[in-house]
Structure formats: C-alpha cells, structure tokens
C-alpha cells in the first residue's frame, strides 16, 4: 500500500506545486489522477520515486519511508516502483531488448550491465513480457525505429520487468492516437489486474480515465479537490477541477462518440490482438 501524507513541494522559483497532499492507494487499485496542466500531477508522481525531491511530508510504500532514504536505499526502493512516461522516454539508440533489460539495472552489477550479461532469468522474463505486449519479433530493433504505440509497449515492458509493487504512469497516451490510446490504457489496466499491481495514472483525457480506472482523484493548484468513483465525476465536479466550461455539451458529444466508437472497437479488436 502507498500512503502519502501531507506531501508538499515548493520549487526554487517559489511555486507551490503541491500543498499538503494526502493520498492512500491500496494494493491492486488503479487510480486516475486528473487535473489541469500545472496542477501538480507530474510533480506528485515524481515525488513518490523522488525524481523530484519533496519539500515536506512523507511517502510510505509498504512500510518503507521513501522520503528519508539515502541514495543507496533509494535506489533499492526505486526498483520496486515502475514508471511509464509521456513520450515513452525510451533510450532511442538502444535496442528494444536493451531498453527492456534496463528495467533490471537495479538488480545487476555494473560490469554485468556494461557487457549486457544479464541473468538468464531476466532474459526469459524480457522475452515473456515482449511477447505479452506483442513485440517479441522486434527484439533487436532500435527503439527509434518503432511507432508510438510500439514504443509505449516497450516502456510498459521496461516498467514491469522491475517486478514492481507500484506503477507510476505519466500521461501514457498524450502522444498517441485515440485507438492506440485505448489499447495502451487497456493493456496497462489488464497487467495491473494480472499482477495485483497498484498504479497512479496521470491522464488528461477524462473520458478515457472514466473508462478504465477504478478511482479518480482530481488535483487543482496542488490540492486534492475530488476523490471518488469515476461514476460520480459529473459536470459540477469537473468545473471544480478545471474551472467553468459547458461540460454537458462535451459530455453529450462524448456520449454519442462512444456509442459510435464502441461497436467499431469490438470489430477492430480481434484482428488487432
């Protein structure tokens, strides 16, 4: 279980990105974090694995106090936290396999990783994961030869090979087309279910979030302004999170879009899998 208590972050510029945010994510829960740009979504998930140093507050992952750790212990804890990025963040000049295996770096020594001599069990797992995300035929392709959706699948495999207890997912679909976005979201949520993983997913697309996650937290100017089931996310809540807008009109558009999209999706699905 991840337990965030009174987490605050003030950047050197004086911006309060997070104002005493408290949040509990039980095991196996997939949580969607929504909110306008600059609300602190990215800062929040980066504070969890301390890619951004929190100013105050505590982060407890299964009993480990992450905010107190020195660099050595922190590295050990980061192994247990998988991260999936906006724009994929694959190392472009490395092969698909090297990118996936880089998820094991926390577990192997420097010389072994330098000569790419990973344990056989890691290599087996890498092949298994690449098969699971449908990329086992692209093992030795360079990451920059892949399409957006394929890259994000490699990103997912890289996060999962860490054998994490928690997934941090930062705008996974921001640079993908609508269909690929759905496929990627579905894949992430399926994998979380298979492995009993909890996840925090930053996401801009409210409709997509409602479709896939079990719980939604709304962040606005560094504070939690909504926390509840996706169904209770109505236009008054959206106004609270994002500000005034004609939510009814968009949600009606969305509803008719969904009706059109759903059967289409069913048709497409078999040929695609």
């Amino acid at each position: 279980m991840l337990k965030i208590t009174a987490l605050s972050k003030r950047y050197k510029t004086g911006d309060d990105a997070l104002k005493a945010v408290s949040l509990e994510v039980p095991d196996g829960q997939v949580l969607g974090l929504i909110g306008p740009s600059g609300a602190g979504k990215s800062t929040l998930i980066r504070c969890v694995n301390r890619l951004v140093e929190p100013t105050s507050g505590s982060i407890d992952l299964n009993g480990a106090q992450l905010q107190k750790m020195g660099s050595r212990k922190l590295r050990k804890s980061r192994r247990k936290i998988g991260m999936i990025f906006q724009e994929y963040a694959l190392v472009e000049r490395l092969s698909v396999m090297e990118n996936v295996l880089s998820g094991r770096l926390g577990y192997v020594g420097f010389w072994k990783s330098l000569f790419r001599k990973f344990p056989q069990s890691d290599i087996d797992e890498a092949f298994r994961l690449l098969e699971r995300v449908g990329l086992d035929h692209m093992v030795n392709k360079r990451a920059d030869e892949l399409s957006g959706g394929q890259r994000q699948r490699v990103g997912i495999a890289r996060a999962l090979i860490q054998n994490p207890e928690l997934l941090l997912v930062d705008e996974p679909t921001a640079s993908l087309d609508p269909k690929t976005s759905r496929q990627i979201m579905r894949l992430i949520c399926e994998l979380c279910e298979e492995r009993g993983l909890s996840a925090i997913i930053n996401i801009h697309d409210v409709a997509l979030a409602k479709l896939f996650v079990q719980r939604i937290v709304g962040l606005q100017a560094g504070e939690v302004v909504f926390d509840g089931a996706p169904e209770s996310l109505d236009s008054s809540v959206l106004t609270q999170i994002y500000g005034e807008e004609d939510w009814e009109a968009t949600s009606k558009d969305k509803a008719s879009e969904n009706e059109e999209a759903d059967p289409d999706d069913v048709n497409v699905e078999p040929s695609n899998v």
Partner: protein
Amino acid sequence: MSEAVAQSGGRTWRKPPAIERPWLRYGLLVFTLIYLYFAVGSYDVNWARVAEGMERGWKFIKAFANPDFVSRRSDFIEGMTESIIMTVTSTVVGIMISIPVALGAASNLAPLPIYLFCRTIIAISRALHEIIVAILMVAIFGFGPLAGFITLSFATIGFLAKLLAEDIEAMDKSQAEAVKATGASWLQWINYAVQPQVMPRLIGLSMYRLDINFRESAVLGLVGAGGIGATLNTAFDRYEFDTAAAIIITIIAIVMILEYSSSIIRRWVQ
C-alpha cells in the same frame, strides 16, 4: 494601381538603421576607411626582394612536379613514423582523459565544484595554442616526439571535453530520467542513458581530432617537438625543395585519407 496607392495613403517605410545616430553611423564608416588606408600603407614592400623571391617561390612550386621521396628516405620515414605514433597515441590518451573531464564539465551531471574544476582544465587547454605548449614541453622534456605527444594530448582534452560536455548538456532529459527511475547506479545510468545519446558525437569528434592532431604534428617539429615537421624544417633550411614537396604531398594525402574515412565512419554510427 496608382489609385490603390493613393487610397492607401502612400505611407513609406524604411528598415530602421542598426545605428540610429547619423553622425556615429557615418563617423564609424569614415574612421574605418581611414584606418584601413593607413594600416595597409604601413606594410613596406621591397619590390627588389619580391622579384628575387618570385624565382625562389617558383622553384618551390616546380618541385611539386618532381618530388624527391628518395634522397632523404630514412629521415623521411623516421619523421613520418614519429608523426603517426604521436598522432595515434596523443589522440587515444587525449580521448581517455577527455571523457571523465567532459562528464565533470557537464552542468547537468556534475556538482558545482567539480564542474568549475573541469571547466578550468578546459579553459587552460583551449587558451594555450599548441605551439606555445610545445615550446614549454620541449623546455621540460627536451627535443623529440615525447614533447609533441604531451602537447597534442593536452590540446585534445580542451577540444574534445568542451564539445562532448556541450553534447551531454543538450541530451534528452526524459531518457535520463527513465533510466534513473529503474534504480540504476550512477555508472549504469551513464552507460545506459547518457552514453547512447552522445556516442555518435564522441566518435565523430574523435575522428576529427585525429585529423587535427596529424596536421599539428607536422607543425610541432618546427619548434623541436619531433615528427615530420622536423624533417620538413631541415629540408627547407637546406633549400631541398623537392624533399619538402614530397613531405607536403604525403601530409596532404594522409589528411585527405583521414577526412574521407572519418566521413564514412560518422555516417555509419548515426
């Protein structure tokens, strides 16, 4: 047409001048012209000497038609061998030292004290021209290729570390962040996130530096730091233009081969 112009009011427009005050603008122009007139006039040309020199110059150029590779063969081979040894060793040693210096001189990797230290090394190396360093090294180590080797290694550090550090600073942050998030150690992080991003540039710059070091090694002989330059200098002192021509033709050929192969290698590592 003219009607349209009349209707639009006929407002004129001119690009505003770079220097707004007219007296300064024209004053600077006049001053520059006067300065150049007197500056060029300060060279005094001895036409009698030029007439004599023309003949000598022509002899030198004619020597390229029948270069003499043979009569100073052993000096020639010894000088070339020395130059090539100097070039290769100084480039390799220079690269090996440049890499850690470049990591330290990249502001996104190194803490401030290390950054300042490495930037100082680079600044010193770049401030001193090879010839000046070579004179100092010859004073310390005596005549010969050792002085040249140290000089060129030192010069390579300033060149390579600076440009590599700049490439590291311009790397994609998200790739670096992603590898860091896996729990990789610092060295693993450098190997998996930083190295793949800067490798093509490192190889390209190294090839370019090999080329520069060879050309420099031909000059360093003039101040006694070994290499083919020493042989070239002796040939000129003895007015053996045909031997000098042979040396220069060889230098040009080697530089061209290096240039061509480096362009192939750079294309290959992209």
